[in-house]
């Protein structure tokens, strides 16, 4: 094989299997082995809302740049699901390499497209070689991993190291996995002649990088951000955020006597989760919940209470496809408006848009400072793609914490303050001073309510006082801008054509910019709502701005139009809302189409 003709470290693999059959660990072995060889790699799990028996796909994408967005088309397919095989091969382009389970799948001549390299693996026959009969159905997935590793030269020692780390110390499991892998290697060695050009070669893309899911990063961010109370209700795709948080807290937040410096409560529903968060925050603790769109809908009433009575809260919304149950295991950016304007009455909230695990970690911590500072709910808007997929990203960087607990008066402070009212804007920034229950001072207490209240927290229905309070809340919301993360500007700053995106759409946009080298473009990644000055200036400096987002209705675009009057005519939508992670293939195609007009 002459390297000169090979396609090195540049291909996209799609594995089609049935969920719950052990393919996930086989795919992870492939993914992690490539990572450990220093190759730029990305993994996307496209799975069903089901535990066992439905079709599932896994994409492993290898590129020199280590792009982390989905490819629309794949160069190589591993077809293990007889039920979907015909459809799977039909979506593959001519020239694709196909591996398939020839024990259960038969292709007719007309299904094979020109230039396809076909490798048949009789998985079921080979599985008889697995001595642990009970594990046969799980281990047989390793045959395709073995075959791929032989043909494309994935280092066996690296693969063994991944297996060893996965099954830490369970020697029988390690042996069984290595043996199954070897069956695949041996079969490929004896039966396959390589007819395609793909090849993996050791590279140096992953220095200082880790493999991590966004939910893990968010959980660690919350822990490093000083969160002590977590109340949550299971819902895909956010459950692993709360669960990971609890498991790390058990390791990192227990004192020498075994006492917990945290409390995690699995609530009876999302209403109770957010209720507990508000109770804990009201009492002064840093508290959070993690949920998805349906949970946000249920929380709306409490979110309004938190906004109006000014109680901090951190809400991680790991967005999934709605409306209703929607596609619960697919990704979208579809709760932007639902969160920005959550609850009845006039409400406006603060949102953060992390685009990577690094930002889940950073914003996950920052959200608690913001919540305490602004005394209001802070939404960390991640999504299923970010939350549940394994990302290759920079290792977490430690930043010594210096918590901003916001405007809280102690008994001592109260002695010095002349005139204190819970909702009295004495600093003129819309943010008032609060006290915590338990404050030992004659004047330390106040009454919190979701009904009309004056500066001293007394009940009132006065139109004048009500209006004054609502105006102050709006002022407070504007004040938040100076504490929010700034947007990130890329590309040709002199260009008159702009792109705005946020969250996970970033990866597809960055790759699109790399591809369109001859087009003058600039790109602003928005990282928070409300929009700060830079966002308005960016739009003003452009003739046209393409708003890339993963929802049907252009939810961020709508907010831009509401908040920045006079810019509407410049905005052009690029929207994808099919539920798979956004691909540069789509953004490039749409952008080229728009600009060509």
């Amino acid at each position, binding site marked *: 094989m002459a390297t000169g003709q090979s396609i090195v470290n540049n291909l996209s693999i799609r594995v089609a299997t049935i969920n719950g059959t052990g393919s996930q660990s086989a795919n992870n072995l492939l993914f992690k082995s490539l*990572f*450990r060889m220093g190759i730029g790699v990305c993994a996307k799990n496209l799975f069903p809302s089901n535990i066992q028996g439905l079709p599932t796909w896994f994409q492993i994408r290898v590129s020199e740049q280590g792009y982390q967005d989905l490819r629309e088309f794949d160069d190589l397919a591993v077809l293990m699901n007889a039920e979907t095989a015909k459809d799977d091969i039909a979506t593959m382009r001519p020239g694709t390499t196909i591996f398939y389970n020839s024990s259960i799948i038969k292709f007719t001549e007309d299904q094979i497209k020109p230039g396809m390299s076909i490798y048949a693996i009789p998985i079921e026959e080979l599985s008889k070689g697995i001595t642990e009969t009970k594990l046969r159905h799980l281990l047989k997935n390793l045959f395709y991993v073995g075959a791929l590793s032989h043909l494309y030269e994935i280092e066996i020692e690296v693969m063994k190291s991944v297996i060893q780390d996965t099954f830490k110390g369970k020697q029988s499991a390690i042996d069984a996995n290595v043996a199954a892998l070897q069956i695949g290697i041996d079969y490929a060695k004896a039966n396959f002649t390589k007819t395609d050009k793909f090849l993996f070669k050791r590279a140096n893309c*992953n220095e200082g*990088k*880790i*493999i*991590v899911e966004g939910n*893990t990063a968010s959980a*660690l961010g919350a*822990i*490093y951000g*000083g969160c*002590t*109370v977590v*109340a949550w209700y299971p819902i895909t795709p956010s459950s692993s955020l709360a669960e990971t948080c609890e498991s790390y807290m058990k390791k*990192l937040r227990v*004192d020498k006597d075994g*006492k*917990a*410096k*945290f*409390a995690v*409560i699995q*609530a*009876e529903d999302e*209403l*109770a*989760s957010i*209720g*507990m968060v*508000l*109770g*804990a*925050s*009201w*009492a*002064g*603790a840093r*508290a959070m919940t993690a949920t998805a769109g349906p949970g946000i809908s249920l929380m709306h*009433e*409490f979110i309004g*209470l938190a906004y109006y009575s000014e109680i901090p809260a951190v809400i991680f919304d790991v967005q999934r496809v709605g409306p209703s149950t929607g596609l619960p295991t697919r990704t979208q950016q579809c709760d932007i408006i639902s969160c920005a304007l959550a609850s009845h009455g006039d409400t406006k909230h603060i949102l953060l848009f992390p685009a990577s695990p690094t930002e889940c970690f950073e914003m996950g911590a920052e959200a608690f400072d913001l919540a305490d500072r602004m005394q209001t709910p802070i939404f960390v808007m991640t999504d299923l793609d970010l939350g549940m997929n394994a990302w290759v990203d920079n290792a*977490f960087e*430690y930043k*010594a*914490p210096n918590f901003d607990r916001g405007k809280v008066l102690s008994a001592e402070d109260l002695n010095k303050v002349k005139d204190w009212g819970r909702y009295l804007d004495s600093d003129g920034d819309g943010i008032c001073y609060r*006290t*915590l*229950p*338990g*404050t*030992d001072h004659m004047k*330390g*207490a*106040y*009454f*919190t*309510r*979701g009904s009309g209240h004056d500066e001293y927290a007394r*009940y009132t229905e006065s139109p004048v006082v009500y209006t004054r309070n609502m105006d102050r809340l709006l002022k407070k919301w504007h004040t938040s801008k100076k504490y929010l993360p700034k947007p990130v500007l890329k590309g040709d700053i002199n260009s008159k054509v702009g792109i705005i995106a946020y969250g996970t759409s970033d990866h597809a946009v960055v790759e699109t910019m790399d591809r369109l080298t001859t087009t003058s473009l600039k790109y602003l990644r928005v990282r928070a709502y409300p929009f700060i000055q830079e966002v308005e200036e960016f739009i003003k400096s452009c003739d046209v701005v393409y708003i890339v987002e993963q929802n049907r209705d252009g939810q961020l675009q709508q907010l831009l139009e509401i908040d920045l009057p006079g810019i509407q005519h410049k905005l052009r939508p690029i929207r994808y809302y099919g539920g798979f992670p956004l691909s540069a293939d789509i953004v490039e195609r749409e952008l080229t189409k728009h600009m060509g007009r």
Partner: protein
Amino acid sequence: MSTDTNCNRAGLSKLDYTGKPTTLCKGCGHDSITAGIIQAYYELGVAPHNLAKFSGIGCSSKTPTYFVDRAHGFNTVHGRMPSVATGASVANKKLTIIGVSGDGDTASIGMGQFCHLVRRNVNMVYIIENNGTYGLTKGQFSATADLGSTAKKGPANQFPTIDCCSIAIELGATFVARSFSGDRKQVIALVKAAHAHQGIALLDIISPCVTFNNQEGSTKSYSFVKEHAIPLHELGFVQFQDEITVDMKEGERKEIKLHDGSLLTLRKLDREYDPTDKMKALTAINDSRQKQELITGLLYYSDKGTDLNTLLNTVESPLWALGEKDLDPGPEALKKINASLS
């Protein structure tokens, strides 16, 4: 201790336990309960600043503003006070927590949260000011209205009643009592005992609505309750700091030792009643409903429960008071985490 005879053991006067003037209808049973709460906390010498008052929405839920002004209070949303109280209890386990709810707030919209509050055994006093009607929205039936009871506008309730005491006992509550707002002495004794109990202490207090549920035919009207209420015991409460030399006739009383060492004495009235027997408690409640009677007093008590904060095994310091030093796992831990993710 103050020598002032108008002061309690905390050196505070009864004024320190009062709140804003009531805005409820004249003669409302809820105001009698409020007065009982004030008296109980005054007699107990509870530190006002350490008390946290919670409520949901409804007439009952307005009452926390009418007592202990010097305590933080939180009027939350309808039916969901339990979750907020739970969060506060977890964040600061040193707080003394009282929640005041109504029958609509607890048994209809709040049934779910009420059940889970009981299951979790949150350390708080939970009072249901139960009048079997929605007062604030002008007289609709609530889920605790008795089957056949009539509303002000005439129709009879067609659906079976929810008995919050039975449900609480079933769900593992360890302090369940029923009382009548007009029985001030019993209310005070029960609030004091509930305060001393560790874990959830439920007081279902029948509190007739003078405006919307006090008509002939209602089973929660003053006249009905007065005629049909049967106190199980005469209650005496002795705080554990006091010298226990109360005049009680031996053989006719049962003493219950509460978590903080206080004694609740039940003086036998017209029949034997053992509040530590779960099945008998449930039977007694059920029998009384069949007979259209209302038994009042401590219905069930157990010292076997473990409250939520004990289960969570949290540190002594309130969680809110932990700072960077306690909460930051540090750079070494992060390094290890990074190493495990490759």
